[in-house]
């Protein structure tokens, strides 16, 4: 009894360690490569926040690790935080509700269709995102709540900050770099650029994308009677 308990504990501990070790290995690999400083600008030269810059090795698809054990997308003051999350295929995402009211998270997207009906606190099971692509999130109570998950086939990705900048740690080699953004006008393939990094030299890359207007239901009280809020 004691032995089986201990074995089980060890196995659980080992399972927990695997992603950590893989992360460390990836980090070690990256440390021996270079950092690609990418900046994404729109057609008017303004920095683009919340763009996902991802790099696929030209010599084929890289082996994917387990990814982080669970990524978190919060719901705070009736908004998803963050607005854009990038994860590798296979990642499990938790959707804790930090508000004192209920939310009802859902997605109709082809890459992941799911629903977490009305809940408070932390749902018991995370949602596994096992297909590459973009996933639009919504809340069925609060129409304006929108967020996006970009599920990447490559482990080399980053989300741009308010200056449109993202840093990707890349092992030496050639890469095809693409950009995705919720307001991207066109396909990510249209943004593709090839880069070669190596020799410990940092690399910089400027990417330009065309944005289209994406409308969100407005978050503001309406002078009309409340319908569903």
């Amino acid at each position, binding site marked *: 009894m004691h032995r089986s308990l201990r074995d089980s504990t060890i196995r659980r501990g080992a399972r927990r360690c695997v992603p950590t070790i893989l992360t460390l290995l990836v980090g070690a690999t990256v440390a021996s490569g270079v950092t690609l400083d990418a900046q994404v600008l729109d057609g008017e030269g303004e920095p683009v926040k919340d763009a996902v810059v991802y790099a696929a090795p030209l010599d084929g698809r890289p082996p994917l690790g387990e990814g982080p054990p669970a990524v978190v997308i919060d719901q705070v003051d009736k908004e998803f935080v963050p607005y854009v999350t990038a994860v590798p295929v296979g990642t499990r995402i938790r959707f804790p509700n930090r508000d004192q009211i209920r939310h009802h998270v859902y997605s109709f997207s082809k890459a992941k269709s799911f629903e977490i009906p009305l809940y408070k606190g932390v749902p018991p099971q995370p949602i596994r995102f096992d297909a590459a692509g973009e996933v639009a999130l*919504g809340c*069925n109570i609060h129409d304006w709540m929108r967020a996006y998950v970009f599920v990447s086939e490559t482990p080399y990705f980053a989300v741009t900050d308010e200056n449109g900048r993202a840093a990707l740690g890349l092992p030496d080699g050639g890469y095809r770099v693409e950009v995705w953004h919720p307001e991207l006008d066109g396909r990510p393939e249209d943004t593709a650029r090839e880069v070669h990094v190596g020799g410990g030299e940092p690399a910089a890359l400027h990417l330009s994308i065309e944005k289209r207007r*994406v409308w969100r239901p407005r978050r503001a*009280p309406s*002078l009309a*009677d*409340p*319908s569903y809020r």
Partner: protein
Amino acid sequence: MLGFVQAPHPRLPALRALPVPRPRWIGWLGAGCAALLLADTTRAEPEWAEWLVDTEMSGRFDDNANRASASSEQEWDLAFTPRLAGGRAAQLAKYTRLLALLEVGAAIYSREEDLTSIAGGGRLVLVHKFGLGDAPWASLSAAGGYEAVRADQRSGPRYSAGAALGKRFSPRFDARAEYRFSTRFGRDGPRVAPAPGVADDVFDQRAHEIGVEGRFLLTQRLALSGGFDYRRGDFDSNAQDSRFDVLQRRDVEAVALDEAFGGWVYRLEGNAYSPFLRLDLGLSARWSAGLAYRYQYGESGGLDYQNHRAEATVLFRY
């Protein structure tokens, strides 16, 4: 000249035979709520889910506040109308919630001070959404309250019940259609001396109303709403003392001295048509400001009235 007022009013027997309006729709409302809940097969445990507080402050201009038929008798006015509503939302089932609100408000008139009023009441709104995302929704509502007007004949309880259907067609556009029944009661009289025997319960009124409204986002913050309301039912209209022709009309259901505008106020049953436009600017997640315009044309036989209303509103929602 005044001989006609000595004869019994031709509508009087029928008017007196009218039963006191009773809110029979409460039974239908209950049945509707039960049907929605039974239809929602994924019921959750009912739970109070959210506090709601709405504060609204409006300034409203009306170019015909007394709804006078003759343009020469029209009185314009400007009213300040603060309103506070608070309550809770209860999540009754996965797609069904109940809003329970208590409301207080006032209307402070700048010219005709006898119209100044305070009001309080409650409202229940049961909202059901038929699925996720942009699925349509339906609501049933019931409201009741009391309005105390300085011109006391206008004071009395008000009740309404309605149903609405709505759908978001895109993030920029949503629309709704609504039906509402409303009834109000006021104090009888004061009786018009030259009209003995004519009913004087002018402010006992009932009406049915249907309306449609669409809302379109012009920018991410600015919404334009437009719609049309049709109302069938009682309305009151003001006439000056010289309008004896009003008393000759068979479709005038009740007449009383008007404590607010002077002259007479009479009740008709008729139709009102009311297109409207509204611009609504979101200042933040909780604040918005709006400008609205409404044109109303009411008619009953040969008597009609029209008015133009403009309103500026600031709204806070917690």
